[in-house]
């Protein structure tokens, strides 16, 4: 008889302007791997934050093993045996693995002093038992992302969690590391744990989950046995309509080389080499994608192209002009457009109006500025109004609305509208659809393809392999700052890309295939 480990009944949670959870039910059996599926903004993270005590529900009850409980903070959740592995790791970078694990429940010796030796021993024991190999003395900032995730899992096991919530765990892993994670999940289940897996990746659900609960726009849609449904059916439940996984696009008609990078070397902020001896071309009328796991040099590459970071050596040429030593302004004038990875940091001034954000790169020239330096606010406003209607941007108060008050999807549209409007020859796009709902994602991808068809050169960096394989005409895989292989569309499959992301060279991978 399967007993119920967790029951959440009628959970409702509202934030200003949005109902995150609307009478949601969830029932998780003891020792099962249960997936929680939904797209961005569906309410999965909110629901689990309630389970973990970070939020109080406005309505609804929670029962753990049949007993009704009130979970008022993470400590209470931990006491009930619930552990959470967050999507964005909650780790102190300059502490060791052990210090991070024991933070909050430190072992003390008889004088009340911090006793790290005992802790280290226990960490080693647990990591052995569950097959999560880590070195207890390593500093977090020195270990890989996959290992950091294991530390997060160890944190919960150290606190004797029986119920583990994993929030989008594969977001930061290579395909191989994802396979290892799937093994870890199976091992944890073997050891008697109950696992809730929050994800929007259908493949993973198929790989490890037994049942799956689907949320859409805050509402409970249904619970299915994973073995009884197909990925398409789950996707349809998630989105509410049949979605096309593929984008319709014509084959590319590449023209002249627009972007030429040769032997580029860029340091990271910490002085370590971010980009190493990298060379790549992008022609007009094609979309070249850079595939790789976050942290392998993509950010430094983009910064070097757009002027936000200095290149140590090598050259970057756009349209025949050497831009390597140019500042950001000069590069914008030279025809480089940039849709940044972090839209709130580099893309928008949130406290400016939409109109001012549209003018952010062109405010100092006509028609927005006179030759004496005086601004023409009328011109700025009417330009904004044009763009708002052309790109179907939802801005309630029009051009004078503060960017901060817009939704993520509309903010991203503002950035894209601004960049495209400047008619760049080269469009550098990083993570364009992160955190957006399906409607916005579709629109933006279509726009990118449209720009390609207009003859622009597009360089796309994305951590979502699906996006790369869908949109790009050519794919380059980056690993540890180097390009380890370049392929035309269709020449490689996901598995092979995965190996290269982890560092294998192109030749090895292709050889193994045949």
């Amino acid at each position, binding site marked *: 008889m399967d007993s119920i480990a967790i029951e959440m009944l009628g959970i*409702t949670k*509202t*934030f*200003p*302007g949005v*109902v995150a959870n609307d009478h949601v039910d969830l029932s998780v059996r003891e020792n099962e791997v249960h997936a929680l599926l939904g797209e961005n903004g569906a309410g999965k993270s909110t629901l689990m934050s309630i389970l973990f005590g970070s939020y109080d529900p*406005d*309505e609804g009850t929670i029962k753990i093993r049949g007993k009704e409980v009130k979970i008022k903070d993470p400590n209470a959740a931990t006491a009930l045996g619930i552990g959470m592995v967050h999507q964005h790791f909650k780790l102190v970078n300059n502490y060791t693995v052990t210090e991070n694990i024991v933070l909050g429940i430190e072992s003390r010796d008889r004088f009340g002093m911090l006793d790290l030796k005992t802790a280290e021993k226990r960490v080693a024991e647990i990591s052995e038992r569950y097959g999560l190999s880590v070195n207890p003395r390593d500093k977090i900032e020195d270990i890989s992302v996959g290992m950091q995730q294991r530390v997060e899992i160890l944190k919960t096991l150290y606190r004797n969690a029986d119920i583990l919530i994993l929030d989008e765990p594969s977001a930061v892993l290579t395909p191989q590391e994802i396979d290892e994670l799937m093994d870890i999940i199976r091992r944890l289940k073997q050891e008697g744990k109950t696992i809730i897996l929050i994800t929007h990746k259908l493949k993973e659900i198929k790989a490890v989950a037994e049942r799956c609960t689907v949320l859409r726009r805050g509402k409970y849609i249904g619970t299915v046995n994973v073995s009884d449904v197909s990925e398409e059916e789950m996707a349809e439940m998630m989105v509410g309509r049949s979605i096309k996984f593929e984008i319709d696009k014509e084959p590319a008609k590449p023209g002249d080389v627009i972007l030429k990078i040769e032997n580029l070397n860029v340091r990271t902020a910490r002085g370590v080499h971010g980009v190493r001896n990298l060379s790549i071309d992008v022609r007009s009328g094609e979309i070249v994608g850079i595939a790789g796991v976050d942290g392998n040099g993509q950010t430094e590459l983009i910064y070097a192209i*757009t002027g*936000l970071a200095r290149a140590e050596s090598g050259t970057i040429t756009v349209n025949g002009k050497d831009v390597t030593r140019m*500042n*950001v*302004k000069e*590069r*914008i004038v030279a025809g480089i457009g*940039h849709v*940044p990875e972090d839209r709130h*940091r*580099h*893309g*928008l*001034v*949130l*406290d*400016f109006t939409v109109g*001012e954000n549209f*003018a*952010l*790169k062109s*405010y*100092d020239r006509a028609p*927005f*500025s006179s030759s004496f*330096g*005086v*601004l023409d606010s009328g011109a700025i406003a009417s330009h904004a109004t044009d763009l708002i209607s052309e790109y179907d941007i939802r801005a309630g108060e029009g051009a004078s609305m503060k960017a901060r008050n817009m939704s993520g999807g509309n903010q991203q549209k503002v950035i894209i509208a601004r960049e495209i409007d400047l008619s760049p020859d080269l469009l550098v796009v990083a993570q364009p659809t992160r955190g957006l709902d399906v409607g916005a994602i579709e629109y933006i991808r279509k726009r990118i393809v449209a720009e390609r068809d207009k003859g622009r050169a597009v360089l796309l960096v994305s951590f979502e392999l699906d996006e790369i394989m869908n949109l790009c005409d050519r794919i380059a895989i980056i690993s540890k700052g180097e390009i380890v292989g370049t392929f035309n569309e269709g020449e490689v499959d996901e598995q092979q890309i995965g190996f290269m992301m982890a560092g294998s060279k192109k030749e090895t991978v292709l050889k193994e295939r045949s």
Partner: protein
Amino acid sequence: MMAETSKKRTLRELLLTSDAAISVMVVLLGFICGTVLIVCVGRNPVGMYKAILQVLTGFNIDRHRFYIRYVGEWLATSMPFILCGLSMAFAARSGLFNIGGEGQYVVGMTVAQIFALLGPQVSVLHWILALVLAMVGGACWGGIVGWLKARFEVSEVVATIMLNYIALYGSRILIMGLPGTNTYKTPDFPETAILKSQFLAKLTQGSMLNYGIIFVILSVIAYWFIMEKTRLGFGLRATGFNKDAARASGIPVVRSIVLSMAIAGAFAGLGGGIVALGSFRYGRVLAGNDGYGFAGIAVALVGNNTAVGTLLAGLLFGMLSSAQPLMESNRIPKEITFIIQGLVVVFIAIRVGFRIFIRYSMKKKAQREAVSNG
């Protein structure tokens, strides 16, 4: 029923979220606390308010007479407050915390004094040039901070304070090096250097009000114009709100920071020059800080970094300051004005928290309504 509650809510929302309203409330709160403090130490707070009334209108309640001179003094005293407020405000709009107004003021004052004594004695031109050079001096002193911040990421908070002290002692060395100077004053200024206006003095029956007021008004207008209407101001505001986005958009952030601190320094330097040539007939060897620079911080905060707000706040602080002698004669210690200043700054700091608190309570209300609406 629904319409009523929503109207009521919007009025309260307006009151509590409008920056101007909050500034007014903060000032009132500061006064209330000051009044309470005076009562606690056994003095009569009415004396403070009588003094304030006389300064604002010239009307002496006890004697039933108007003394316009006090109004003139009020305006004259407000000048450095307004300018130092503009100094802090300008930098703040660009994202910088300029507490070096004191040092920039001292540099302006020192330059003005030196030029007054050593410069060519051409009427009118003499003091105008002195003021201009005072602005340049202040601009340089501010620009250094901007450069240190932009180039070396040195916190402008600590750098400006160090430069304040260096300016003070440096000023002493330079002024004492002028011929004929003893340990506290220089020889008298030539007539051509003195900032005096027959017209204005007559108008206000012998107050110290002088042509500096024109410079102040021009400064306020210039502040507004630069910030809101020029591309320089656009770039500075963008940098102030989000340095990273500004940089990614091609805005020259390093140059903006230096320029912003330089302009801020110019405002404060002008204040120093006006005080040097308008309030004294000779150069002073500074024994301590005049305090306008620090008061300017409070002025800018109360004025919410806007042109009009800073003007009004500067007038307010000028009023408090020029009422000090009257307060003393009513047995109120003059330090009450510094206390009110300090309280105002602390309360303004809480303003942000206030706003968060209001947002939080509005959130709760919206939640309750959303849930009840189903």
